[in-house]
C-alpha cells in the first residue's frame, strides 16, 4: 500500500495528528468527554495505521512487541501503585485525598495518574492485539494446508463425503 502516493502522503500527515488528538483527549478528560480508555484507543490507531500502510516489519520497528508487553503491565502497575501510595501515606487504598497537602489537589493528581495508567495499558493492548492477529501465516498457506487435509481424508476414508465439505474457497 505504500506505493500509492495519496495514501502514503495522507497517512504521513495524519499519524502525528492522530497521536496529538489522542493526547488531547487523555488530558482533557476532566473538562469534557474523554479519559483514559478513549485516548488509549485513539493513540493506538495511529500505530495501527502506520502498520497497515507501511507494512508489518516497519510497524513493529516503531513499537517493538517486547516493549508492548512491558507497557501493558506498566499501566496496571501505575494504577495499583497510586492506590498503594495512598495506603503508604496513611490513607485507604486508592484514597487520593492524602496524596498532596490540599485534598482537592490530591484528587486531581490521583485522577491524572490513574488515567495515565489506564491510557497506557489500553493503547499497548490494542497495538499488541493487532500485532498478534496480523502476524499469522499467509492465507494461501492455510489453503495449501486445507488441500493436504482433504487428500489425507480421502486416502483414509475413500467413501466418506463428510470431510470434503471442509472450508473450500
Amino acid at each position, binding site marked *: 500500500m505504500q506505493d500509492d502516493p495519496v495514501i502514503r502522503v495522507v497517512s504521513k500527515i495524519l499519524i502525528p495528528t492522530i497521536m496529538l488528538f489522542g493526547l488531547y483527549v487523555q488530558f482533557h478528560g476532566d473538562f469534557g468527554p474523554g479519559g483514559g480508555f478513549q485516548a488509549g484507543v485513539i493513540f493506538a490507531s495511529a500505530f495501527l495505521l502506520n502498520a497497515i500502510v507501511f507494512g508489518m516489519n516497519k510497524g513493529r520497528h516503531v513499537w517493538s512487541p517486547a516493549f508492548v508487553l512491558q507497557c501493558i503491565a506498566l499501566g496496571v502497575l501505575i494504577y495499583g501503585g497510586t492506590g498503594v501510595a495512598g495506603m503508604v501515606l496513611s490513607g485507604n487504598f486508592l484514597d487520593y485525598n492524602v496524596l498532596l497537602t490540599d485534598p482537592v489537589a490530591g484528587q486531581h493528581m490521583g485522577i491524572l495518574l490513574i488515567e495515565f495508567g489506564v491510557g497506557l495499558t*489500553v493503547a499497548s493492548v490494542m497495538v499488541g*492485539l493487532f500485532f498478534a*492477529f496480523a502476524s499469522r501465516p499467509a492465507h494461501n498457506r492455510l489453503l495449501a*494446508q486445507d488441500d493436504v487435509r482433504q487428500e489425507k481424508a480421502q486416502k483414509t476414508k475413500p467413501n466418506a463425503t*463428510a*470431510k470434503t465439505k*471442509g*472450508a473450500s474457497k
Partner: protein
Amino acid sequence: MNISILLDQWNYVIVIVLMMIGFYTVIARGNLIKKMVGLNIFQTSVFMLYISMGKIKEGTAPIFTNDPATIYSNPLPHVLILTAIVVGVATTAVGYALIIRIRESFGTIEEDEITLALNEEAMAENLAEQKR
C-alpha cells in the same frame, strides 16, 4: 397488557426488539463470526437499555456548566456502561483469537462441521482404545 403503556415506553420496546435480533443470530446461525457479530449487536442493545434509563426530561450531558439551573442526566449508568463496553471488546478479542485457532485446527468455522469432526475424532480414539 395496556397498549398505551407500551407506546409510552417505545424506547424500551425497540431496544428489546434489537436484543432479540442479536439473540436469534447467536443461537440460530452456525458460522462463528456471525455469532460474534450477533453477540456484538446484543451487547450494544443492552447498553442502549441502560442509557435510556438514565435520561431525564430536558436534561443535558453531566458536565458542569456555570448555569445553576441546569438539570443533568444521571451519570451513574454512563459509568457502568463505559466499563461494560471495554470489557465487551476484551472478550470479543479473545473470541476472535479462538476463531483463528479453530480455523487452523479444523479447517472450518461452521459449527456443524466442527461437531462432525470432533465426533469422528472421538470415534477414532474409541476404536484405537478397543484394539489395545
